Each structure stands twice: as C-alpha cells, then as structure tokens.
C-alpha cells in the first residue's frame, strides 16, 4: 500500500549545517573548559574557607586540653628545644563524652526528638505536597507561596510566637478556658510536645518542597495504568506513587532530621530544662564552661552521628540521577 508522502526524494540531500546538534555543543564546552572551571572554583573556594578550614580548626581543638588562657586551650604542638616539634594529641575529651551520662543521654534525646519530628513532618507534609502537586497550576503557585511565606518573618520571632500560644495564660489555654472545655490551664510549655510542635512547624517546608518536586514529576498516566489494570485508588497509591516518591521522602526526611538533631533555639525556648538537646550542651560547653576542647569533641561526635544519614541521602540522590 502506498499512501505515504514522498518525503525522501533523491535530490533533497543537503549536508547538516555545522555547529548544530549535540556534537557542536560538546565541542563548544571543550573549547571553553577554563570558564567552566572558574564557575566551579568560586563555590569550592567558599566551602574551603568557610567550612573546611573551620572544621579542621575545631577538629584540632578537640584533641587539646582546656587551660585558663586566651584562647582557652593548649596549643597542639610546641617546640621542645629549638629543633624538635612535639605534637600532643589528647584523646581524653572523647573519652569524657562517654563517662558523663549527660552527653550520651543528650545525644539519644536529640536523635529521638529529631526522628519523631521528622515522622510528624512526613505525615503532615506528604498529603500537603501531594495536594499541591495535583492542584491546578494557578492554585499550585498560590499554595507554594503559602508554604514559603513564613520565611518572610524571622525564625526566632516565629518560635517566640509559639510561647505566646502555648504558655499557661497563652492564647490556646485562654480560649479553651473561656469555652469551658478545661478549668485548669494545660501545661504545654517546657514539654517534649512543645519542642515537637516547634520543630515540625519550623521544618515542615523543608519536607514539603522536595516531596512536591518529586510528586509533581510523576506521570499521571501511571496511575491511570494502575487503575486500568484493576488497582483501586488506594492500592495504586501504595504500589505506584509511594515507591516512586521514596527519593523525595528521603530528601525531605534528611533535610528535617539533620538540622533538627542539632537544633538549639527551639528546645531552649520551648523545651524542658531537665533534658537538654545536644545543640544546647554544645553551646553551654563553649559559652558557660568555656571548655573549648570538650565542646569541639561534642561537635565532632555530632557530625559523625550525622554522617550516616548524609551518606544515605547521597546514595539516593545518585540513584535518582542515574535513572534520568
């Protein structure tokens, strides 16, 4: 059957114009490699000066010993006589972290608070991200705007505002008492719940945004295909949407979990005074005890604690990139 258009006449063969298509592009990149390196050099330098160098300093101090001096720690190396340079590494600070129960319990408490908060962020954030991803384009940009809107006010102010809501003669207790629901104010300040509320409230956008950007990319035809093959909506969600959103869940969970472990402001303002989080311990060691070596050891230990989830995050990110 020959109903085709004669697209390939023997006369119309022109060579491809130069510089078009992927070949031309990669040649362009090769010619301009210097520019590429310069672009990468700026953030590299930034990270080296403001992250790597301070990290090395803190790491060094953690092997030192506290003295009453300025700065309040012994230098790591000293000249024994004129020629011999002595390097003294003091491991006692790390040992000390395990001997005093305060540190271990603070670490565990921090991990627990961060984990529970992350779970609540996920439970609250997933439906919100899903709803935004399924909304009409106009509604979507409005909803995203609302998610980002709290950032226009200082984080510190927003946490202070929670004190006004949660305290014994705060808004919530007053309203409930006026309505006659309760007769005595509920103690909400200085509890674990207040810390959870504060962290979930503050970090929810960091859960929603990566989840949204994952869910928004899902092909709606996949859910139609699942329905077509006999899966009810809930089943289709469990078998298709949820597994495909795992990279978004991982990204969001780590963006909440990692900063929540080291959170300082929220537990200090809203939390218990008998159980400290590790961020508070760290700051107390630095500013109250002026024991910089132990404070540095606490910081390094916290970093080690967070390396594992960061590696998980990297693995998922690489895997998702490889799929594209």
């Amino acid at each position: 059957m020959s109903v085709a258009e004669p697209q390939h006449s023997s006369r119309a063969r022109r060579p491809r114009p130069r510089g078009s298509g992927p070949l031309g592009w990669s040649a362009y990149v090769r010619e301009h490699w210097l520019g590429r390196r310069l672009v990468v050099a700026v953030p590299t330098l930034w990270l080296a000066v403001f992250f790597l160098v301070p990290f090395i300093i803190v790491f060094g101090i953690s092997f030192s010993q506290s003295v009453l001096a300025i700065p309040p720690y012994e230098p790591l190396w000293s000249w024994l006589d004129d020629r011999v340079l002595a390097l003294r590494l003091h491991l006692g600070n790390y040992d000390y972290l395990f001997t005093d129960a305060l540190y271990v319990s603070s670490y565990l408490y921090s991990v627990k608070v961060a984990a529970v908060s992350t779970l609540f962020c996920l439970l609250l954030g997933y439906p919100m991200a899903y709803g935004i991803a399924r909304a009409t384009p106009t509604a979507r940009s409005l909803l995203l705007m609302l998610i980002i809107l709290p950032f226009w006010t200082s984080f510190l102010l927003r946490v202070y505002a929670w004190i006004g809501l949660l305290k014994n003669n705060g808004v919530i207790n007053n309203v409930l008492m006026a309505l006659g629901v309760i007769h005595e104010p509920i103690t909400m300040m200085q509890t674990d719940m207040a810390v959870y509320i504060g962290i979930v409230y503050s970090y929810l956008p960091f859960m929603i945004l990566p989840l949204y950007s994952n869910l928004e990319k899902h092909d709606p035809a996949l859910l139609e295909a699942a329905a077509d093959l006999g899966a009810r909506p809930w089943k289709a969600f469990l078998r298709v949407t949820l597994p495909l959103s795992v990279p978004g869940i991982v990204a969001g969970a780590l963006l909440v979990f990692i900063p929540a472990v080291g959170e300082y402001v929220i537990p200090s303002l809203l939390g218990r005074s008998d159980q400290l989080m590790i961020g508070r311990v760290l700051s107390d060691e630095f500013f109250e005890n002026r024991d910089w070596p132990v404070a540095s050891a606490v910081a390094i230990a916290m970093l080690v604690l967070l390396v594992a989830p960061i590696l998980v995050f990297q693995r998922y990110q690489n895997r998702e990139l490889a799929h594209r």
Partner: protein
Amino acid sequence: MAEQRSKSSEPWLDPHAEAYIRIENVTRRFGDFVAVNNVSLKVYKGEIFCLLGGSGCGKTTLLRMLAGFEQPSAGALFIDGQDMAGIPPYERPVNMMFQSYALFPHMSVAGNVAFGLEQERLARPEIKRRVAEMLEIVKLSEYAGRKPHQLSGGQRQRVALARSLVKRPKLLLLDEPLGALDRKLREHTQFELIGIQEKLGVTFVVVTHDQEEAMTLASRVGVMNRGEIVQVGTPRQIYEFPASRFVADFIGSVNLFEGQLTEDEPDHVRVRCEELGAPVYVDHGMSAPPLALCWVAVRPEKIVLRRERPAGADNWAHGTIRDVAYMGDMSVFLVRLDSGREVRVTQANITRKPEEQFTWDEAVFLSWDASSPVVGTG
C-alpha cells in the same frame, strides 16, 4: 491484507449481529469545547477497529471514555451489553495500552506484567506462569528482570502490550500503539499485533493519526473529524469510496477538482471541471440535482501519463511536468495543467530504461479510467 483476513466474518454486514461495543449518541464537552459530538458506533467481537483522525479530533477522548478515564457528558456506552456509566476503570473488562506506554519505572518487566494479575489476587505460581507465558508471546522472556529504562523503544512497546494483554481482556484499547517506533520496526510490529490479536481473539480498538497504520491494522476504520465520525468502513471502502470531501482528502493523497454536474444518468455522470481540459466521465450514477456543484477526486496512482493524446473526449488533461521525485519502486510527478493547477501523479517504475521515463519540463497527457474518479457533493 486486512480484508482477506476478515472476509470470512464481516459481522457489520449482518443486521442481527450483536455488537460488542455500542456507543450511543455520546457527547463529551470540556467547558465550551465539544471534544466528542454525538457519536454512535458499533464494534463487533474480534474486530480491529481503528479510530483515525488528526490531532484534536476527539479520537483519544472517545477511547478514554471506553477505558473509564473520562465520563460522557451525554449518551451511553455499552460493553458486552453492560452500561458503563459510573463504572470506574478498575472494574471494567477493558485494558488499555497507553501512548506513552506508562510502564512503572520502579518495577521490572516481569513486575509490570504481573501487576494486573496481582490485583486479581491470583496465587503466586499462577501469576508466575501467566507472566512467563505472556513474555514468551511478546518475545521478551530473557528481559524479565530488566527495568523499563534499560529497554529499547520497541521492547518497551512490547512490555506495554504484554501488560495490557496478560489479564486476558475481552477488549484492548490501544492509543497510538506504534507512534514511538521507527518505520521499519513499525511495519514489523503491525503484523505482530495482528498475529497476537488473532491468536488471543481479543477485540482491539486502536486510536491513530497514521492512516498507514490504520490501513494495515484495521478490519474497519472510523474516520473522525471535529468530534464526529464522518465515515466508517473497511480500509478499501474508505480509500476507494470516500463518502465526503474530507475523507477523500484526509486518506492518502488525492487530486480534488471543483466541478459542475452536466449529465447525471443512472449508469454514468459527466462533470465539467474548469481546471481540466476535458470533461470527467464516471461510469456510475449518483443522485444530485442537475447542474449541482460537486467535487471530483482522482488518486495519483490512478492517473496514467502519456506522450500522445488519449483517444476519446473525456477523462484527460494536458500539462507540463514541474517536479519529479524518484522513490525506487515508483516516481511521484507534479504536473502543472494548462489551467495552472498542479496535479500529483504516481507511476510504478516498471522499466529501468532511462529514455522511457518522463522528466522535468516534459509536456504530457494525463488520463484515467472512467471507474477511477470519485464524485460527490458533500
């Protein structure tokens, strides 16, 4: 091809035959836009029915209403005698092969194919057996463990087909099934599809914008335009006897001329066309008012080029060759008639001798058989 296959059974010619799909006055509106306008259609068991039309003609919307992803604004759909109103996609006896294939990227080939069976809560060994059997049919057994992104386009297409057939649906809906494949692979897959359809006895409803695809696959074609079905027929009927100017123009390439009926007898009609030198004589009658304005369609392959003037007063024209495209098995000529009108003519390249072939700027006579032109007023 398609015809020989269905010659034994042409249920649409039997007035008592039970239609498998009945579409009754179905309309679908999106706001002010009418995507499907009052369509009625019957499709019979075992057919490969192609809905053919340009983009935005409503063919995909009609298919999605059969699958249950869209609801008709008015009218009713029946599949196997059952009214489909309010029945969600996951309860319909229908499976669909999506244009994008919509394979689950996180599942292996076997996982994709097994998904539908798992929803039926079949026993594990039964699922395994049927998945293996289906992968055998589409020749993908050794790819069972791969993920969709590790497959070529043709392999993905076969996974999608296997996934939609494994539940043994009575009706399979295919949305541009061959659209993403290259030409060679398409021709191959077309015949594979027909083979599988015959083997499993499934009714196919195929949506395509590609008339070649429709012609090779279909037992019948429904041509759609602006939300309406403008003609239903076998590929041959649609090609040789287009019911309207739109169909004549849409299917294949055609030379359309405006004319006026000068003679309308039971056994012939004669049409005067300004653009042709001689009248057009057609050896079958039509019923139209005398001197009615009409159109005449002549397919390029039905026109013969000659160097000398044909005998007889009718069915010829004179012109100059403006362009030649040599395509191997045939050549396409663009001939400018003396009236200035350009006409497309295709000729099979029967001879290899160059001196016998027509070339640029040559003056030629065009002629055609009295049975070739199609005349219509619609």
